């Protein structure tokens, strides 16, 4: 039983046709058509994803890997087919390298708790960057406190790029892991993942990539990037919440102890000891998010149908247009580089107007943007601001929506200026 997803590959992106797949875009907010520009926080879902999940619950619902009855067999087949699709989507060697988690955060925590606790000790070092999302900071802080591990940070330059010339010094003989984001969720910087991973390997460290903002927006192949772990979330790439992925090289995953104990992750259980299941199930204790995994499988098929090159090209086109239009807004300062290719998002400040007021005012016009520190407080501290406003784009956004954003910001300025 295969996932039924309508796709037509090798076609330039047709935004109007894509928009028709997203029922939520018909919604009105405060009597305005919804302009959804908060995709870096969570994307909307096409009917293909909603239908796959709905169909699963209506026709197939059962626990996986347990029953011998038809429903359980069908559910298991759908669930594992989704894993195979995700595996192919990110260029993993095989589905056993795809570990389902709740989200990217849990995936990173899995590595910290399992690999970190088993392999790191006093005096070892972990290299991070100043632009990390809290998900790729806090788990390492917890581990560092527990294991007396030292944390180092690649600094961020004024233009929002990483100061990678510092790498030779920062990658010490004691550095065991270099964990970094592929794409900043604030300044939009796209980091040279392959080069950074190569530098880590040269120093004898592993490379963990936070792919939460890259996997939804560009072609990603973990083998070509030659990395060791990658974490990403389903809900930022058209899938449901509650499902995310840890990809890891299988020899590393095989050598790691389990993260959580319980059903499904064991081969045999005795009263005082147990033996673990093989990959990937060793890391998937308890009944998993079955419908969500199937939903993510459908999302991946939808994206693959468009083609990730086309997804990336569209994102670049919209964000380039947004950068040009936003630069016309008086008092607006964009965080990060304004020239280099960037991810499909732009964070900014607008004079003295607080981001909450900007986002609140835009919401009254039906425009959804993010206001705050976007779970990257240290990066905001780096730029000396408490918060910013962020517009982030995806396949269903168009230039007309950027125009509405800019018009909305002009109204905001008029409204709040004394």
């Amino acid at each position, binding site marked *: 039983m295969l996932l039924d997803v309508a796709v037509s590959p090798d076609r330039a992106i047709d935004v109007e046709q894509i928009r028709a797949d997203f029922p939520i875009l018909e919604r009105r907010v405060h009597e305005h058509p919804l302009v959804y520009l908060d995709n870096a926080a969570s994307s909307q879902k096409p009917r293909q994803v909603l239908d796959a999940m709905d169909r699963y619950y209506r026709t197939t619902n059962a626990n996986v890997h347990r029953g011998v009855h038809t429903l359980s067999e069908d559910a298991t087949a759908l669930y594992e087919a989704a894993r195979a699709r995700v595996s192919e989507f990110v260029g993993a060697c095989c589905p056993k390298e795809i570990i389902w988690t709740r989200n990217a955060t849990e995936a990173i925590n899995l590595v910290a708790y399992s690999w970190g606790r088993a392999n790191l000790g006093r005096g070892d070092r972990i290299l991070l960057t100043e632009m990390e999302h809290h998900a790729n900071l806090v788990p390492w802080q917890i581990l560092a406190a527990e294991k007396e591990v030292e944390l180092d940070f690649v600094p961020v330059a004024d233009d929002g790029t990483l100061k990678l010339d510092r790498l030779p010094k920062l990658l010490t003989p004691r550095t065991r892991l270099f964990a970094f984001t592929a794409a900043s969720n604030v300044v939009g910087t796209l980091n040279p993942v392959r080069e950074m991973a190569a530098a880590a390997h040269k120093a004898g460290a592993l490379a963990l990539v936070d792919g939460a903002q890259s996997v939804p927006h560009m072609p990603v192949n973990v083998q070509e990037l030659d990395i060791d772990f990658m974490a990403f979330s389903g809900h930022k790439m058209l899938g449901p919440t509650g499902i995310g992925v840890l990809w890891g090289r299988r020899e590393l995953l095989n050598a790691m102890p389990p993260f959580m104990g319980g059903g499904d992750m064991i081969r045999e259980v005795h009263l005082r000891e147990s033996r673990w299941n093989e990959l990937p199930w060793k890391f998937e204790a308890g009944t998993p998010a079955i419908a969500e995994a199937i939903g993510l499988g459908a999302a991946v098929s939808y994206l693959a149908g468009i083609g990730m090159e086309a997804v990336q090209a569209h994102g670049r086109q919209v964000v380039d247009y947004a950068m040009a239009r936003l630069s016309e807004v008086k008092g607006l300062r964009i965080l990060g580089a304004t020239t280099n290719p960037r991810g499909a998002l732009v964070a900014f400040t607008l004079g003295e107007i*607080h*981001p*909450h007021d900007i986002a*609140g*005012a835009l919401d009254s016009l039906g425009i959804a943007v993010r206001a*705050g520190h976007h779970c990257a407080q240290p990066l905001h501290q780096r730029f000396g601001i*408490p918060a910013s406003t962020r517009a982030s784009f995806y396949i269903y956004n168009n230039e007309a929506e950027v125009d509405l954003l800019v018009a909305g910001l002009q109204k905001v300025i008029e*409204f*709040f200026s*004394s």
Partner: protein
Amino acid sequence: MMDLYAEEILDHYKHPRHFGHLDDPSLTYHDTNPFCGDEITLELKIEDDHVADVAFTGHGCAISRAAASMMSEEIIGKSLDELRAWEKESILDLLGVEVGPVRIKCALLPLKVLKAAVWGLKPEDE
């Protein structure tokens, strides 16, 4: 543009009352709202257990700044006991608009600092 930003709130935001510092405050309290990065420092001049003067500084959205400004006007002359009895409605009534669940933390940050001050709590951030 929006119901939330009533005329009076906008006026207090654009022209905050008691914004600045006191020469010789009896109490200085500071707090932040980590959710949005708002911060406020409240200075009180206390005479005979009554608020003789007040000043505030900090960064914040229109709601939190207007709330701080309106609250400052209101507390002058009040006794510490009266202020200890203040509840969140005391501030929300001053604002006079329906503050949703998302923005209520902005509205109540000034009160949180005031409460810490009048109860003499040990400041966390000093």
